[in-house]
């Protein structure tokens, strides 16, 4: 079957090459060819070989790492609706519930994913054609992450607008994948958050009321409850760990995200330094607030912060983005630590935004090049001082 595909691609290749019938579609053709097969071109100049895996292969691994969170998120969408909707027969068999919840969530989630991919890839292909370069594969991951970090009731046209904004303003204006300094998925979320705040926060957006339509059932997230002056989130720690709580579609379940994290760390795609330091930063900041203890939110035990909102999802899948995070090892520690710390600061101290993870990562994305610069120039200085001594 693979041989057949290879033969087919080789057969139609001349049509898209220089002198063929459709040369202007060459980037589109190239994108699909390298999606199916590892390209047989190799780097000829210099020695920049870092890994045997090319970018498409590593992006696929990230998508696989996202799957546990995605599948759990789909089930949880249905489960949250079932909990609040008496017409669902909760007493029916476990397997029936499992399946029908998942099916409901799958049908809710599918349009979001399709819109995200169609709009984003459409723009990417357009830019690739105009600029005559290859289609970058970064959007494979971005396009999946965007629907995973928005409320399930997000109107599709708003999502489409946000994706278009993120791809054009967050990425393509800087030269495409690898040149952007902000995480495109978070740019899309920030766009939605500031453009249509009523659809992105509050307690009326997290639980879908029915299969079609944008009606929602009222249900606060743990972060929303804390923001409203709660002493502890009403969900138990176990529920928050498993993820059976309202929230953005696929970032509620700590256990599913940790599964993905394990795969990313085993394959060496994401940096363990960033992940660990984000958690450390959040923990230290949480402990510091515990020590101050001026109000109920400050007294919240620090480990709650890991389980609420998008902290873990951000730490595992977004802070570790190899393009927008710090590149030096020391820089990664500083970068990650500050993300965790700022996320908790924003949550506890800022009365306007219930979730700080998005803004913390975007802020540190801006500072990542500066951190790297300082680390590198410090290293240069240290080595220069050795030269002076030898004189």
């Amino acid at each position, binding site marked *: 079957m693979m041989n057949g595909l290879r033969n087919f691609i080789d057969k139609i290749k001349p049509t898209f090459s220089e002198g063929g019938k459709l040369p202007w579609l060459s980037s589109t053709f190239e994108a699909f060819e390298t999606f199916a097969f590892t390209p047989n071109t190799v780097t000829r100049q210099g020695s920049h070989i870092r890994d045997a895996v090319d970018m498409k292969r590593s992006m696929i691994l990230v998508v696989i790492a996202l799957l546990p969170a995605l599948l759990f998120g789909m089930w949880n969408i249905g489960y949250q609706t079932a909990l609040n909707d008496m017409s669902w027969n909760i007493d029916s068999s476990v397997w029936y519930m499992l399946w029908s919840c998942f099916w409901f969530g799958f049908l809710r989630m599918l349009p979001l994913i399709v819109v995200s991919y169609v709009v984003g890839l459409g723009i990417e292909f357009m830019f690739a054609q105009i600029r005559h370069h290859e289609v970058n594969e970064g959007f494979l991951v971005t396009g999946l992450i965007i629907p995973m970090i928005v409320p399930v009731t997000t109107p599709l*046209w708003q999502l489409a607008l946000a994706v278009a904004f993120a791809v054009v303003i967050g990425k393509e204006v800087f030269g495409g994948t690898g040149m952007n300094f902000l995480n495109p998925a978070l740019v899309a979320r920030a766009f939605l958050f500031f*453009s*249509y705040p009523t659809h992105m926060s509050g307690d009326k957006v997290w639980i879908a009321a029915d299969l079609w339509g944008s009606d929602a059932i009222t249900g606060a997230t743990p972060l929303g409850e804390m923001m409203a002056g709660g002493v502890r989130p009403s969900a138990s720690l176990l529920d928050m760990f498993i993820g059976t709580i309202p929230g953005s579609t696929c970032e509620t379940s700590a256990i599913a995200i940790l599964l993905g994290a394990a795969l990313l760390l085993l394959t060496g795609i994401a940096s363990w330094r960033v992940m660990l330091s984000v958690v450390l930063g959040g923990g230290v900041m949480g402990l510091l607030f515990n020590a101050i203890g001026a109000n109920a939110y400050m007294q919240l035990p620090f480990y709650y912060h890991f389980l609420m909102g998008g902290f873990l999802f951000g730490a595992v899948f977004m802070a570790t983005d190899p393009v927008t995070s710090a590149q030096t090892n020391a820089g990664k520690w500083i970068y990650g630590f500050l993300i965790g710390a700022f996320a908790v600061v924003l949550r506890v101290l800022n009365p306007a935004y219930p979730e700080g993870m998005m803004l913390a990562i975007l802020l540190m994305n801006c500072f990542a090049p500066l951190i790297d610069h300082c680390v590198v120039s410090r290293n240069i200085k240290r080595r220069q001082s050795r030269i002076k001594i030898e004189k």
Partner: protein
Amino acid sequence: MSKNKKLFTTPLLKNNPITVQVLGICSCLAVTAQLKPAVVMALSVTVVVALSNFIISLMRNTIPPRIRIIVQLVVVSALVILVNQVLMAYVYDVSKQLSVYVGLIITNCIVMGRLEAFAMSHKPWESFLDGVGNGLGYGIILVILGFFRELFGSGTIWGYPVMEKLGMYKIGYENNGLVIMAPMALILVGVIIWIQRSKDKELCEK
């Protein structure tokens, strides 16, 4: 004549104070959330730049070089106060909306920039035309920004509820909150610069 015409037209596009010289960004972010204040601001700046260029050019041979900045400032401040009084007398509501930004025309880089770069070394009539051109060049961008930000941010144009009359809200459309905020104005200026440079390759840096 053609030289004078050029003085007037180059600042409109080819040497636009905002998109090419990148001056006057602060006020262009601050006053363009709606079209009406944007237009009033554009006219005010045009009047101030044109008249101050003209007056300074008249005096250019008598100003001692060492104190030229303070002389320029006195002229500009006098004109800005005049403009502010006129606005308060005839369009009080807009004047309220613009608040400090009318007074801040004094610090607008375009005004001082044209005085230093042009009026100090050119004849009055030429300087006047240059001032009008630069003021209108600034104004064009303000009007474009004001139009799009008011349309997508508030759903109105010059206070007229366009989106509502078109029935957009009934089919689920909503106003975009980000467009009202200053960051989006900066992004829009960036988009205008992008479009302009992709049309005019001469403007691109090597």
